């Protein structure tokens, strides 16, 4: 029944009120600026709640190596639980993969000769965490945390998964390799 005052008049009235009141001046929000009251979700389209997607980083490997197994085992357990519980990655997105050990024999020479004075064996243990679907922005958080918590002797390498790397875990299938060679021979022209 009453004509609605124009918006500009409404805003100036409000501003004047703010200016001349005892309260410190604050930019008040107009009624039209305020968000609509939250209606029950049944009647609201879902797209209103969509947050911007943060793209996931490509699948990467966290490769932990150490010469002492107990230290490595404990730290990888910690890293795995970190990824599962704090970064909310499910079992599909965060898997632990054991790699066989690499043995090296180190010979120490006598000074200024190649006569061996000491020899010992160094074993390098390796565990890999395959991380998938981690938001790319959170990757720096993860790396930072792991870097600060690395124990003595443990080395961390972030790498892309590769098949040649994975091949080391399996016993080589020599029969299949030989048969494939024969197929190549046949194809190239006997």
């Amino acid at each position, binding site marked *: 029944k009453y004509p609605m005052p124009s918006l500009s008049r409404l805003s100036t009235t409000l501003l004047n009120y703010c200016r001349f009141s005892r309260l410190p001046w604050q930019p008040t929000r107009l009624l039209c600026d305020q968000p609509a009251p939250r209606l029950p979700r049944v009647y609201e389209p879902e797209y209103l709640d969509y947050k*911007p997607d943060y793209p996931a980083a490509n699948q990467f490997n966290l490769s932990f190596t150490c010469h002492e197994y107990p230290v490595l085992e404990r730290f990888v357990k910690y890293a795995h639980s970190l990824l599962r519980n704090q970064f909310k990655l499910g079992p599909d997105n965060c898997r632990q993969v054991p790699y066989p050990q690499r043995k090296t024999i180190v010979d*120490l020479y006598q*000074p200024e000769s190649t006569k061996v004075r000491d020899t010992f064996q160094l074993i390098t243990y390796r565990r890999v965490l395959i991380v998938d679907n981690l938001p790319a922005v959170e990757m720096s958080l993860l790396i930072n945390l792991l870097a600060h918590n690395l124990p003595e002797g*443990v*080395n961390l390498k972030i790498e892309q998964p590769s098949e040649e790397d994975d091949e*080391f875990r399996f*016993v080589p299938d020599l029969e299949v390799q030989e048969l494939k060679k*024969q197929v190549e021979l046949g194809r190239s022209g006997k």
Partner: protein
Amino acid sequence: MLTASIRHIFNYASFGSRNFHLSVVLPAEPLKKKKRVDPQVELERIRKKTRRIEKEIKRLEQRGRYLKPLDEIEGERHFIKTLDSRERKLPAPSQTEVEQRALLMKEWTRFKWRQLDTECQLLANQRRELYRAMQHLRMLDPSLFELASQPDESLLGLSLSGPLYTLPQSADVFDAVDGDYRDVTPTYRYTFEVDKKMTFGKKK
């Protein structure tokens, strides 16, 4: 037998001055006539063989690959066998000892939980600030927001190592020795035999 018959001829015939001598070529068989091979037939033969080999490859690949054993999990045989001789038989702990151990365990649990809780809170704060900053960036400049939310390629190939127990030592204290490394990782190569029907090798 052929050589014997020829020698017989040589002995009893009057060819002595004819220099009739035996050589390797004489008792040899005459050369067989080379069979004319139809190229189409040959190609078909090779194709069939390759198909058979490929079928065999598929069959072998289906049965799955064997994983190399992990010594650190399976345990070393030497240690497992001598476990009895190295086991210490200690007397059962006293009541006070048991209580002390229980209290110590409680203390440790409390310490570790507090440590974990602090870490979780720090991480949660960091994450909250990160996403808040991203939201502000999105409001200021959507294109920059897009760039910032992309994966960082410089993080791949990063190599980090834990702290060292001692500081680096000077040359007069540390004896830099010459030496050599030898890789003795077991390669798991085994002997095997491939069916001759599956090979393109030369005929013996």
